[in-house]
């Protein structure tokens, strides 16, 4: 499978293994075609998780991960891509409906937008909140003071 896709995509795709877990590092331009291919041709029918990691010092600040599982093959694989701050990604909701809330959470926590998402809005934090807490530049004690004071009627939530 790996060889086939390497031949097909060339330098846009790299397959690695760490501690027995396989993952693909793919170019941003291969999303979502590659994901769709994994579902349709390789039977990765279950999107386990979708998440991001922030590297503020890098030029392309975000790593996005799709953790996929195939029921017929009993196999897990991760797909990883890099995007810059402000760049958006195509939504994978049409591929796996479960990505709906997962993408909303990534948007809520990192501020990454997914094009074509049916209802991209905050999920865990209140709608009027400013800032995306899982970015590295968001301090652990930081909060949207204005929101807290207006909506909770207290000086600070800490």
């Amino acid at each position, binding site marked *: 499978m790996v060889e086939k896709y390497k031949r097909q995509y060339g330098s846009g795709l790299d397959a690695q293994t*760490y*501690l027995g*877990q396989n993952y693909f590092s793919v170019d941003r331009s291969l999303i979502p075609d590659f994901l769709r291919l994994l579902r349709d041709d390789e039977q990765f*029918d*279950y*999107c*386990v*998780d979708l*998440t991001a*990691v*922030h590297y503020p010092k890098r030029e392309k600040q975000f790593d996005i*991960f799709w*953790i996929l599982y195939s*029921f017929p093959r*009993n196999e*897990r694989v*991760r797909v990883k891509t890099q995007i810059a701050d402000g760049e958006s990604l195509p939504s994978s909701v049409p591929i*796996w*409906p*479960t990505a*709906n*809330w*997962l993408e909303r959470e990534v948007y809520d*926590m990192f501020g990454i937008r997914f094009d074509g998402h049916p209802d991209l809005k*905050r*999920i*865990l*934090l*209140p709608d009027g909140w400013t800032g995306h*807490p*899982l970015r590295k530049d*968001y301090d*652990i004690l930081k909060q949207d003071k204005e929101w807290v004071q207006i909506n909770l009627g207290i000086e600070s939530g800490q």
Partner: protein
Amino acid sequence: MERKTTERKTTDTTLPNAVSNLGASNLDLETPDKPYLDSNELILNMGPQHPATHGVLRVILKLDGEKVLGTECVIGYLHRGVEKIAENRTYTMFNPYVDRMDYCAAVSNGLGYCEAVEKLMNVEAPPRAQYIRVILTELQRIASHQLWLGTHALDIGAMTPLFYTFRDREEILKIFEKYCGARLTTHAFRIGGCQYETYAGFEKDVKNFLAFFPPKIDEYETLLTTNRIWLERTKNVGVISGKDAIALGVTGPVLRASGVKWDIRKAVPYANYSKFDFEIPVGTNGDTYDRYLVRIAEMRQSMRIVEQAVNGIPEGPIMAKVPKVIKPAVGEIYHSIEAPKGELGYFIVSDGSTQPYRLRVRPPSFVNLQALDLMVRGALVADVVAVIGTFDIVLGEVDR
């Protein structure tokens, strides 16, 4: 005589007044057919303070009379930023925090986290620790299912099972308390094994429970399995097909009740589950009743695992050689376990320091809850309560 005259006088004077002081009319005489109650759709807020939502879940229902046209879940009321906290604590310090996510199954959360970090460090817990872990985790699964059964039945209107399950759950919590001092947020395991050796009489207590509990499951079943009201309220309610369940990422008993025979303990064995003989109970219809049957059967299977584990528990160390300061090499790992609610995964990115660079929890309740909308469309309002209950969600885990 005089009295009578006065009476007549009053009647005479008030009558014309009563007709003249009528005020303005609000009747719409132009369109007399306009109904007083129209039949538009109704938006109803259920929660966040609602006894049947198992915490602070808010469901916005769009109703046509009693029929549900659509729902939207509003969550996050219990958000504590667990993932952010993880980035600011060492691997060891973060361990107790995971207990606070699914606080009804803290032992399972701890097992998943400890195993994920162990995997990242490439160490393995010694066999004795593995056995202790399996015994406690399976007992926790039973306790979690008991709590679910009691509250789910209570939501639907059967009050008795709650008292029965809580009475029996107490026996498991007593074992936890004797083992590690806590009943709910146990922090039972450490990275590399277990901190505590079993107490004197641990095996006896577990064996006593094994003898005590099977008749109790039968007792639960006499209350519900053939109860006509229970059947009416759960059969063909909240049906989801196996295909939809997979597409929506639903896991755990909810997936198995839809006929998908998939359990991480068998599919991707962790701890030492591959050593034990047990079956994966599955349902056929994917309705609320089947999910009930699957969980009842799972309790029996967990008893089998505990029995094998407690009889085969070896002697030996309970901690692997793990450095005092945990510093995994640069890399990332995803590890998941079959928690009572479904697939509980931890995705950890290490930058080689003592703190996780990023720790992501894949909570089963959060992902399962997404299927609520599909499962209640076209159902009645009362069924929404049954379907929320059947997921066995814990809001601490949904919101983290």
